[in-house]
């Protein structure tokens, strides 16, 4: 009996030693800001947050050489950093060769994420390249070759990474024309080759990878971690045995150089799989921001867009990638036509001379990191000099012309659109300024868009110009590149996916507001189905309108005052306390009595957008952060 009692006591003690989560083992504490932790981890995050101060969910772009795991460094692997140094442990050393030798270029590189860090990249010119010492021969049975690159233009064949001696090659990845890249393997004959293909975007940073293994003889290609069209199987599968070297951004014969920059490249003697390709791409491109708790972001936009960071530089984003920087994200853009041609080629014949300027093409690194910005030199002290283009617009409508400009020997520039001028007299010589002018009502369907050096006829000197746009409306829109034709943009729809959402009673959006608001421009929409959603948007009096829509019935509340314009960090909140819908602007709240039961199970959070297109904001607020919580008193 005594032994049995002892056994029970031991058992009870053991049970008591087990970790929670019994309700009586839990103790509530106060988190930063005074909120009860409710027994949960004290991270201060709301149930949903996008772009919190901590940066949670916003990845920074990794250095390519840092993404390889130990298991992926096989055989004669090597990795070349963007500054020309080799990664520690590389089994091969690539050295600068050719003349002129490659140069390096330092840019802000921030496709997404809070850390727009400075990155050095290799800019290849003429025969310049990085290659291993001559005479290295190795024909692995499997390989992976990757290059993190941005091509200034894609009109010609440009080598990204190649296993070649200039005459014979084993494996090479190159641009293959205007908008594609291929990775090609050649077998022992060496007459047979097979090619995989992907579609590229000029000016965008891409990770192009090719893989090969003699086990199946199929050359594969990946663009930004997604498999492209694979080649056909080589037979025999054994690779060409000619003496070959690995070369970055060129061929070893100094032909077909990349006209652009390389932010890193590597080769390893193993065939990495699709999972590894995707992992490496996400790390170096940082193109998969999430909510603070990992909620997946989905973006639909079937056109490219320049994503500008707070320092004036930026990154050209391919389709379906939302512009997220450390400054937040712009509200969703609707479809619009950008009318200017040759936006990055001020020397092109689409632009005519005003006076007798001297234009030097591709003389300066652009805000996007490409060597595509032009210099305009005005040496006439008695007249304006610059370039002019006739653009097609809708008559009697407001249009805005914009250009990125930087001081050369002169810090002044004038834009003229349909005769309306806008002057800037304080251009920086170290950073880009986006200058603009708005024509309130166009005089016809064809108007003159001019960029002129100086703001007076007596001014002389040089300015650098890039990225000139003419777009509808009175405000500057995201920069859209164009070449031989005007371009239209696709309306974008960005949203985060939620799972098991409780009834969300409190919502907050922080925005940098524009100079004016478009009515019904959306800040956020929390969506379950068309009949159940909570919407935050600009009301008819430029105030905040909160619509709690449950079962198709709208329970609305309005802020008492207008949302301040041209103001940074404006806090907008919509909440329901069981009695009132409370709409607050910077803590100033207005309550409207309503009675309803908030829905649960929201599946999407649209950021800077409604649940459908047609309610995009222009002028465009910058969405600095979005929050939602089941606590109805959390955001006021």
């Amino acid at each position, binding site marked *: 009996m005594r032994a049995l009692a002892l056994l029970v006591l031991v058992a009870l003690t053991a049970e008591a030693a087990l970790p929670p989560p019994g309700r009586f083992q839990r103790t509530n504490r106060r988190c930063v800001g005074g909120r009860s932790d409710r027994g949960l981890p004290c991270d201060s995050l709301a149930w949903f947050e996008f772009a919190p101060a901590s940066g949670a969910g916003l990845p920074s772009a990794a250095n390519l050489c840092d993404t390889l795991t130990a298991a992926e460094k096989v055989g004669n692997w090597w990795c070349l950093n963007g500054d020309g140094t080799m990664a520690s442990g590389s089994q091969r050393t690539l050295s600068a060769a050719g003349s002129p030798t490659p140069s390096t270029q330092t840019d802000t590189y921030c496709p997404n994420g809070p850390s727009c860090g400075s990155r050095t990249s290799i800019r290849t010119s003429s025969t310049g390249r990085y290659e291993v010492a001559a005479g290295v021969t190795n024909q692995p049975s499997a390989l992976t070759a990757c290059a993190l690159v941005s091509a200034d233009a894609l*009109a*010609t064949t440009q080598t990204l990474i190649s296993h070649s001696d200039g005459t014979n090659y084993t494996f090479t990845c190159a641009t293959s*024309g*205007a*908008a594609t890249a291929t990775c090609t393997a050649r077998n022992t004959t060496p007459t047979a080759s097979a090619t995989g293909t992907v579609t590229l*975007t000029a000016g965008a940073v891409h990770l192009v990878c090719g893989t090969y293994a003699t086990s199946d003889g199929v050359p594969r290609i990946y663009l930004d971690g997604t498999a492209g069209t694979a080649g056909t199987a080589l037979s025999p599968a054994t690779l060409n045995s000619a003496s070959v070297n690995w070369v970055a951004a060129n061929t070893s014969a100094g032909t077909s150089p990349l006209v652009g920059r390389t932010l890193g490249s590597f080769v390893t003697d193993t065939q990495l799989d699709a999972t590894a390709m995707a992992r490496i791409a996400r790390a170096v491109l940082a193109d998969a921001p999430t909510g603070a708790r990992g909620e997946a972001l989905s973006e639909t936009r*079937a*056109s*490219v*867009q320049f994503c500008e960071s707070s320092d004036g530089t930026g990154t050209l984003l*391919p*389709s379906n990638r939302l512009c997220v920087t450390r400054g937040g994200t712009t509200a969703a853009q*609707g*479809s*619009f*036509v*950008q009318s200017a*041609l*040759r936006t990055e*080629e001020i020397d*092109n*014949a*689409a632009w*005519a001379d005003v006076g007798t300027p001297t234009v030097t093409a591709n003389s300066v690194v652009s805000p996007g990191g490409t060597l595509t910005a032009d210099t305009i030199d005005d040496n006439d002290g008695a007249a304006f000099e610059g370039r002019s283009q006739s653009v*097609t617009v*809708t008559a009697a*409508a407001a249009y805005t012309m914009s250009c990125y400009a930087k001081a050369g020997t002169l810090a002044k520039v004038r834009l003229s659109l349909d005769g309306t001028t806008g002057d800037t007299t304080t251009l920086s010589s170290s950073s880009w300024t986006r200058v603009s002018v708005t024509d309130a009502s166009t005089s016809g369907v064809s108007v003159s868009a001019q960029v002129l050096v100086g703001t007076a006829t007596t001014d002389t000197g040089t300015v650098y110009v890039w990225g000139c746009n003419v777009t*509808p409306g009175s405000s500057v829109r995201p920069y*859209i*590149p*164009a*070449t*031989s*034709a*005007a*371009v*239209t*943009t*696709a*309306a974008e729809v960005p949203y985060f996916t939620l799972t098991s959402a409780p009834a969300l009673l409190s919502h907050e959006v922080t925005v940098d507001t524009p100079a004016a608001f478009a009515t*019904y421009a959306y800040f956020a929409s929390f969506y379950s189905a068309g009949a159940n959603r909570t919407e935050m948007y600009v009301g008819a009096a430029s105030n905040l309108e909160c619509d709690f829509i449950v079962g198709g019935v709208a329970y609305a509340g309005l802020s008492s005052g207008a949302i301040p314009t041209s103001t940074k960090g404006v806090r907008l909140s919509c909440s329901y306390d069981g009695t009132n819908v409370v709409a607050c602007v910077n803590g100033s709240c207005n309550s409207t009595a309503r009675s309803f039961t908030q829905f649960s199970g929201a599946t999407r959070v649209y950021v800077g957008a409604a649940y459908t*297109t*047609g*309610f995009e904001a222009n002028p465009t607020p910058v969405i600095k952060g979005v929050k939602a919580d089941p606590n109805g008193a959390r955001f006021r």
Partner: protein
Amino acid sequence: MRRLLALVVLAGGTVAGVYLASTTDAPGAGGVLRAATCNVRVSDECLAEYPALKRYETVRFPVLRDVSDGGLSFVLPRALAAQGSLARECIEVVDWSACDVETCAVRPSICADWDAGQPLTRVRSASKFVIPDCRGADGGWVDNHAPVACTQLDGGWRGCNVGLRAERTGAKCLDAPTGVVYAGERLEDSL
């Protein structure tokens, strides 16, 4: 309000919209039959299905022109509206306000295709746009090609860029299937 905004977006400033016809729609019921000539963008699926097509094309097809609700709308042919129709998924009109809309007296064969299974007719030469032939010897496009015989009416050279057919002259003008492309796409790939 939502509907009105959607219409403005579709037409780029002109209040016009496009609605797919239901099976009850027919010529004369809710609109007047017309022949439209439009620049269109072809979907990825159709490019794969029909290799002869380019990303941008100029096509002619019957439409119902409807002003009954105070605005201007176009109703696409019944065959295009049918669920699962490949043609419906194929094309997207780049800019309805830039379409030529003609009477059936002018284009009777087009109007007769209202019920046809494939009511689209490819008419590149009817595009309002041309572009100089800046192809090099290897067939590739040369952006900074020397001037060719496709100039402004006053003889001015505007480079290898698209322009209105009415404002260009010369034997080296190519039919351009559109004057506006999606950002990131190239008109030259559709020549």
